[in-house]
């Protein structure tokens, strides 16, 4: 009916998540984990956000600089357009962030596999989200507020956060 009415077909958020798993299956990324505000939504209460941050481990490329071209080529082949450093997957702007250091590597490797409408989805654990928010380059008032919300979330392991702070030198 939507086709007859010339209306775009309904898209579902789960499709975006399914495509992230597809990227991993295709070997374009080694692994991924949702970070940023949407990760917060998985662990705490909903917050307004307009994009989906995805931390990615890229396969060794043998290049001096990290390239996201594999992801962009995959997106173009599937009909997803790029928009200001985002790839719009099923109408959700997704920003792929290559892991920028050992903390981000660990955040991806230790991510929790949750389920959204039957789709498995990797999400950065709250303790690692707090640690990422405490990185000097990431400290903003908004992120401090998010870190505080995560600290209050049920099940957050404060001892793990303390150990991450020590290990990665995140003290103020």
């Amino acid at each position: 009916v939507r086709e007859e009415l010339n209306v775009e077909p309904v898209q579902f958020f789960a499709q975006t998540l399914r495509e992230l798993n597809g990227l991993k299956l295709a070997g374009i990324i080694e692994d991924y984990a949702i970070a940023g505000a949407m990760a917060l939504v998985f662990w705490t209460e909903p917050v307004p956000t307009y994009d989906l941050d995805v931390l990615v481990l890229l396969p060794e490329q043998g290049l001096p600089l990290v390239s996201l071209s594999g992801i962009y080529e995959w997106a173009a082949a599937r009909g997803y357009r790029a928009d200001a450093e985002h790839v719009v997957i099923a109408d959700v702007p997704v920003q792929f962030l290559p892991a920028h250091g050992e903390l981000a590597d660990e955040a991806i490797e230790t991510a929790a596999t949750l389920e959204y409408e039957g789709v498995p989805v990797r999400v950065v654990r709250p303790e690692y989200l707090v640690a990422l928010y405490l990185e000097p380059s990431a400290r903003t008032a908004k992120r401090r507020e998010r870190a505080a919300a995560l600290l209050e979330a049920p099940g957050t392991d404060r001892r793990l956060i303390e150990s991450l702070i020590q290990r990665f030198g995140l003290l103020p």
Partner: protein
Amino acid sequence: MTGRPRTRPTAELLDRLRRGKAELRAQRTRMSLKEKVAMVLKLQRIYLPLLKRHRPLAPWERPWDVEP
């Protein structure tokens, strides 16, 4: 800043209000993921006009046309 004496809320009332807010946040945290995503989609529509008043929007800053 009139310096006029005003009736202030009691500590008990303030405490009750804070506890109410904490309970609301806890309820939202306990929602299913699908309900949370539905709320994110609603919040996107609510916040966009406010955001627009503060700064120019990036091209990707718009409500997602998806179902939760």
